């Protein structure tokens, strides 16, 4: 009797890229719902616009490259990129912001390099940075946490730019807490004065602290499910907290507390979802820790002394550049060999 030939191992494989991506989306859900609760329908529109653009763009490029479009889309990586990008964008941004960002992220930052597994830079962050630099105004106007626009008003604002009756841009948008800190520190106010404003909540920015908390919980669940490993989040949060602690100890009036730093902006989203993108991160265990610490340090530096209120995106892209070198110098010792020199 004749049989087919296969290569070992022959046991059915345990893991699956699509399942990993689905779990990432699931872990993002609590934080997303919290963001929707606080910032309104804009968040949902961003996600929908970015998602649809991403899937369509990837399908189109795959067709051009003569690759099987449907099976590749099914792995869910384009959707994850789009959702991460959308969560980083201001909720009331015009419709073309998530569309352009998503197009750049998928077409240029991912597919032009060869598709899944080949991109050296985090596509979501690449798209975000392109938008930030090209359209700085649209990207720094965040919606005010209290100004709940209803569905139709948001729809109108996002797609046509038409403001709701009786509202002006000033009433519905405002700077983020970190943006506000940066501006007011520049005006020589102290942190204790700044923190009195209603922009700030219990231990970090109002609203932002809860969103970050939910992302933290989602990230811990991902760790539990072994979709990500502890090295990068621990490195990033540890690095960020450590440098924040050092400077907070030097001058509490100017430098925020570590707790504030950890729960502001995209810190938790970055630590568990963005920096852990396996394709653009380091691969060796020790390398990942250094990579995470690097992102944490750079985030703090850009936040405190750089030109932008939140440094996660730039920090991630800069460490993406360094990832191959870090990998090269953190090769683990192989079984049966002496210590590496």
């Amino acid at each position, binding site marked *: *009797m*004749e*049989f*087919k*030939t*296969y*290569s*070992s*191992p*022959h*046991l*059915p*494989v*345990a*893991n*699956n*890229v699509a*399942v*990993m991506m689905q779990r990432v989306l699931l872990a993002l859900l609590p934080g997303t719902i919290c963001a929707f609760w606080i910032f309104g329908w804009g968040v949902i529109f961003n996600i929908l616009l970015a998602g649809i653009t991403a899937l369509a763009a990837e399908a189109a490029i795959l067709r051009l490259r003569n690759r099987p479009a449907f099976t590749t889309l099914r*792995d869910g*990586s384009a959707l994850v990129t789009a959702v991460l990008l959308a969560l980083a964008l201001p909720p009331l941004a015009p419709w073309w912001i998530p569309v352009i960002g998503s197009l750049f992220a998928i077409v240029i930052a991912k597919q032009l390099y*060869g*598709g*899944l*597994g*080949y991109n050296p830079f985090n596509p979501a962050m690449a798209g975000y940075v392109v938008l930030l630099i090209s359209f700085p105004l649209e990207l720094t106007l965040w919606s005010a946490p209290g100004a709940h626009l209803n569905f139709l008003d948001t729809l109108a604002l996002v797609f046509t730019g038409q403001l709701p009756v009786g509202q002006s841009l000033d009433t519905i948008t405002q700077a983020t807490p970190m943006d506000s800190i940066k501006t007011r520190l520049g005006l020589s106010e102290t942190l204790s004065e700044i923190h009195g404003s209603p922009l700030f909540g219990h231990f970090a920015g109002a609203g932002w602290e809860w969103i970050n908390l939910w992302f933290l919980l989602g990230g811990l669940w991902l760790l539990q499910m*072994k979709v990500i*490993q502890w090295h990068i989040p621990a490195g990033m949060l540890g690095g960020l907290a450590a440098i924040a602690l050092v400077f907070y100890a030097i001058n509490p009036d100017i430098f925020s507390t570590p707790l504030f730093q950890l729960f502001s902006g995209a810190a938790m989203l970055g630590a568990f979802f963005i920096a852990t993108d*396996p*394709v653009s*991160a380091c*691969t*060796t*265990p020790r390398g*990942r820790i250094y990579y995470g610490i690097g992102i944490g340090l750079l985030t703090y530096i850009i936040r405190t002394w750089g030109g932008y209120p939140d440094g996660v995106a730039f920090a991630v892209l800069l460490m993406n550049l360094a990832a191959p070198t870090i990998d090269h110098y953190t*090769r*683990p*010792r*192989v*079984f*049966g*060999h002496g210590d590496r020199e």
Partner: protein
Amino acid sequence: MADSGASFKRRQQPASFGRLHTFHGGLQLPGHCEVTAALPVSSAGIPPILVLPLQQHIGAPAECRVRPGDHVCKGQTIATAPGPISVPVHASSSGTVIAVEKRPVPHPSGLQAECIVIETDGRDSRQQADHAAIDYRHTEPAGLCELIQQAGIVGLGGAGFPTRVKLCNRSQRIELLLINAVECEPYISCDNRLLQERAAEVVEGVRILRHTVQPDVCIIAIEDHMPAAEQALRAALDAVNEPDISVTRVPDIYPSGGERQLIKILTGREVPSQGYPADIGIICQNVGTAAAVYDAVVRRQPLLSRIVTVTGDGVAQPQNMDVLLGTPVSHLIATAGGYTEDVERLLIGGPMMGYTAHTDSVPVIKTSNCVLAVTREEMPAPPPAQPCIRCAKCTDVCPAELLPQQLYWYARSNNYDAAQDYELFDCIECGCCAYVCPSHIPLVQYYRHAKAEIWTQEIQKKVSDTARSRHEAKQQRLARIKQERAERMSRKKQALSGDSGNKDAKQAAIQAALDRVKHKQKLAGTVPKNIDNLTVEQQRLIDAADRRRQQQHPGNKTTD
């Protein structure tokens, strides 16, 4: 589904060699061996045909000593070892040799190799020879080594390295003799049953090995999911009151049964990458090998059979069988109830490191520990490989602490120098990395391909270096001939271009040369036929030639 992470509990058991250590990575895999481990070993009987490959071991193939038509007895040596790293082959049952030819053998390539084919006569008769048991206690280790070699014993754990070489061809002192009963690969339970049924013989075999090796310590390592086997083993040790051989339980992690990993677990020491366990004072042998040593020394029987686990959903009655070497797999399956309907794949060996056989006419050889007939449902065809997402799950599970991902990239792009730099040859091909890969990349196949390509390139390099040196030698030879010819020419020219006064001297030289030749011929007693006693016709031809020569070169001497 198995958990691919590294967070499983490892129970520490007190051992007589210190505490248990751990090795990096590894997997907990579903056992799939409960059914076959609980059934007694049945006999596969005597098949109608035995196909015995000349190479069932690592090393040089054995040399055939029989011809078609010869009658052979059970246990008769039918092929001898040509050198030190080889073992003889014996007839597993009595019968007649019907062919010595190429037949399919268990090998992933599906190629054929030289085999001795015996048609059995069913009588299973042994040779008339001395079968008295040898008392190993009063035998020199060298004598035991020779017995082991003559019995054709190789490592029965799957590697097939000649046991005599491992035990005896070394100069190092041995601290630890480690007997490997850690059956970590799913589905396989042959060692489990061996211990449950023949524990006393295994213990005796271990004592013989201990006497041969003379270690300081002797430990039998057993996996903690084999309680019945462990119990039988301990009972057998107690029965002979053997306190110096201890039994250690090892956690059920694949691949703890690998020699290097097991040594790390028990001693914390790592076998050097390009070295052998003997280099750090350890020798590791499989329990099956110990039982074979018992057979060789006490029963005076060479290695003729082994226990094979025949299992999988593709076979009707999975069980362990005592199989004569050379039995075709088809006979085994038939004895185990035949195939079930959906059988799709036939594996020789376990599901992690075994290879597919493309026909069931391949025979069972010394290293075949398991025959797996699986259905499509049990082991579905692997989905197409997706791009590597660099998640590094493979790095987490690699027991050799390699970077499988980097090896994959380099093997794929044929960058063999970089692959070797990342220690490709330390890969033990256990399959843990491919098992956890979410993109379903057949990693082990890439590494096997890369290793084979590197070996081929090294051979090519030697071949091309030899060709270059032969080419250069030829060119030097031609140049030397040319130079010699040129020198001869120039000498001759010099001689010819002297003044005409030397013409007489030249004539004198020629006459002197002719006289020398005549003188030599006289001494040798030969009479040249062509000078004297010429026939008329010959003389006429010679005169004509002389006239022609005179016309062309007047003044030259004629032949005389």
